[in-house]
């Protein structure tokens, strides 16, 4: 495949045909905020925080999904771009609890976003935390509707299709069929939705309980890489260990086979490791 040459912020760059503007930005080490984008999923380009200005294009374009074209002239920090990015962050910051969304918090600061400017009565997506099973918790007050969990549950990874976006407009939300609780739904508890959630809306029950108790402390946690003990596939596991207990299990995103995914056993079946005799 041939290379495509374009300019970004006046700098010339060559990237392989089929690359996105985001890929080209990264090659030039131009920091570009992303929220709904993940290296392991097809871009859905819904958050619009990665928008850039392309000369000749009426509206801004999402850099995460827009493919480069020869001679394209891209601007990533024009006033239009900065305003749109700031506004996207203000809109999210004013409607969603971003207190555990580290990336979003960083961008809010970087772009000087003031979510408070919409007033104290600004509508939010706040709703009660859903604790309806022993493995993971859904706190949709923290959901920015990035669609990653839906993609991971559906055809991108798991093909379980237990969740989808339901409702419309500001009322759009992630839902099981008829909003039934997880144990009544098609969920198989692989937790691949938890793995891709960028805002802490989906977290393991163990983490949730520690956070509720005020004892979750990432600075005290160690990570250990190992291989899943269950079947012969041999998925890589990263054990997150706090005070000698496994508190979370993830899988490396950059592994060619699993790409961050696991099944219910790998992700949640670790209690036997720490069943100590009294």
């Amino acid at each position, binding site marked *: 495949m041939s290379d495509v040459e374009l300019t970004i912020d006046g700098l010339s760059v060559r990237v392989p045909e089929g690359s996105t503007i985001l890929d080209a930005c990264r090659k030039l080490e131009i920091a570009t905020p992303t929220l709904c984008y993940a290296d392991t999923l097809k871009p859905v*380009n*819904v*958050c*619009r*925080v990665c*928008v850039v200005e392309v000369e000749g294009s009426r*509206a*801004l374009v*999402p850099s995460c*999904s*827009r*493919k480069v074209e020869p001679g394209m002239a891209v601007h990533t920090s024009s006033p*239009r771009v900065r*305003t*749109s990015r700031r*506004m*996207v962050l203000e*809109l*999210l910051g*004013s*409607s969603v609890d971003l207190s555990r969304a580290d990336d979003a918090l960083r961008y809010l600061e970087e772009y000087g976003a003031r979510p408070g*400017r*919409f*007033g104290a*009565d*600004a*509508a939010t997506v706040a709703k009660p935390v859903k604790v309806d099973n022993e493995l993971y918790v859904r706190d949709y007050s923290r959901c*920015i*509707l990035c669609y990653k969990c839906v993609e991971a549950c*559906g055809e991108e990874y798991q*093909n379980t*299709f*237990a*969740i*989808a*976006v*339901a*409702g*419309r*407009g*500001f*009322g*759009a939300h992630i*839902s*099981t*069929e*008829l*909003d039934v609780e997880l144990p009544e*739904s*098609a969920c198989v508890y692989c937790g691949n939705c938890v793995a891709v959630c960028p805002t802490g809306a989906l977290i393991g029950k163990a983490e949730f309980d520690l956070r509720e108790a005020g004892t979750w402390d990432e600075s005290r946690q160690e990570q250990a890489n190992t291989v899943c003990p269950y079947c012969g596939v041999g998925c890589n596991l990263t054990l997150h260990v706090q005070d000698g207990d496994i508190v979370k299990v993830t899988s490396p995103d950059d592994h060619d086979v699993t790409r961050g995914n696991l099944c219910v056993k790998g992700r949640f079946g670790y209690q036997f490791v720490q069943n100590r005799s009294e």
Partner: protein
Amino acid sequence: MDLRLLAAAPSDAEREAIDAVAGAPESNGYRVARSDRDRRHLLLPALRAAQRRVGWVSEGALGYACRRLDVPPADAYGVASFYALLALEERPADVLHVCTDLACRLAGAEVPDGAHESPCLGLCERAPASLRTIAGKEPRELQLPETGPPLPQAGVDGLRLLRRIAAGLDPESLDSYRAHGGYAALARALELGREGVIGEVDASHLLGRGGAAFPTGVKWRAVAGQAAFPHYLVCNADESEPGTFKDRTLMESDPFALVEAMTIAAFATGCEHGFVYVRAEYPLAHARLENAFARARAAGLLGDDVMGAGFAFDVELRIGAGAYVCGEETALFQSIEGYRGEPRNKPPFPVEVGLFGKPTVVNNVETLFNVPEILTGDGSAGTRLFCVSGHVGRPGLYELPLGTPLRELLELAEARPPKAVLLGGAAGSFLRPDQLDLELSFEAARAAGVSLGSGVVLVFDESADLVDAVLRIAEFFRDESCGQCVPCRVGTVRQEEALKRLAAGRGNGDELEVLADLEQVMRDASICGLGQTAASAVKSAIDNLGVLT
């Protein structure tokens, strides 16, 4: 697909209604038949059928549709909950939807107890209007009042698109259509050949009449040249822009012309299959089109060998379920395919990757109506339809040469002296009384920084409450945002909040700056045209009329 299905069973009536769409089930118990794969595009028709039978979409009906069409229940719930006219809670079989949108508000719309409020029903010339839906064995939908004022230009010379309607054509009779010159254009198209037809459409400089004004000939040539097959033809008849009723009038009163125009378009661009996507609020148009399809088929004007000329084309009606955004072409594809009406990012454009991922021509009803006139008339596309409503003595559909001053149209319609005119609908802009000399052409509108949009001309006289109109427009976009992208999903809510604060005199001094920022992010960063224009009329009311400032 290995689906976990809902436990509730459908009633016999629901099963029958869904089977009528999905076909008789194969006797393989609870497993999904192989032949049911890839039939997801029947999801919306199946849910609609169940609701028309029993009045709502029950858990049993939703589950049965999933089983028959191999759709995961969570996914189907996401679809069903997207469309405003599908009810997921039980409700009476007989429901009244009362329009509370711009024209009907001016006409004093009132919502009786138990009735539902509705966005614009496209009946603005007979405002206040409503839609009554009656579920049952023989479901019915009624547009109320059932008839409107007669065509204002009846008997006027020089009409092109409204010519047959003005002359009193029988919309249910193919013979009547032929007696008014019908099917002469298709005959000419067959003589001209594909390239010849595209050449004439190109030469006419026909621009799309749905709102975006894209050159039709360019679109057709792009699809005709695509190597991927099949090519699809889609007629966008999801006319939902508040104040717009032109496509409804054309489909109700001259449906064969749409069939002929689509056949010509299909011939020119190599499409064997066409869809007309009509909003659910237009039941008479549905009936008239189905009748026209059947009669054209029986006369060999649709089917495997159209007019004996050796090319195949057939067309099917698809009906929406209450979603303005589905008038956006890619949201419309999603809807036909059985998904939520969430617009796709462009590029790729529909001419390359459209319906079912194939090259697709999408044309608005009025755009298509121009095609036979171009082939048999003087070759130009020099007129345009305008939907006039509000404070006028003779509301209705007008056809005028492009370039006619707005003032002349207002005089024809016996408009009361306006305080403001909304041009182009909720996605358009407000004009001041001193701007009425605007020429109604694409070029003049662009130069004035406005858009003719879908041809809406809504008149507000001195008595009108413009703050109320602006708040209604903000509410409309908040309700109709699909919710996919952040700028529109949250921006439309923030826009309405800021306007309401100003209207209530509770502003904190920041509102105009907030509104300007919202306008910018929605216009610049939304995925589709809905979000990109969601602040357009509001901005013009503030900047141009000084409303709420």
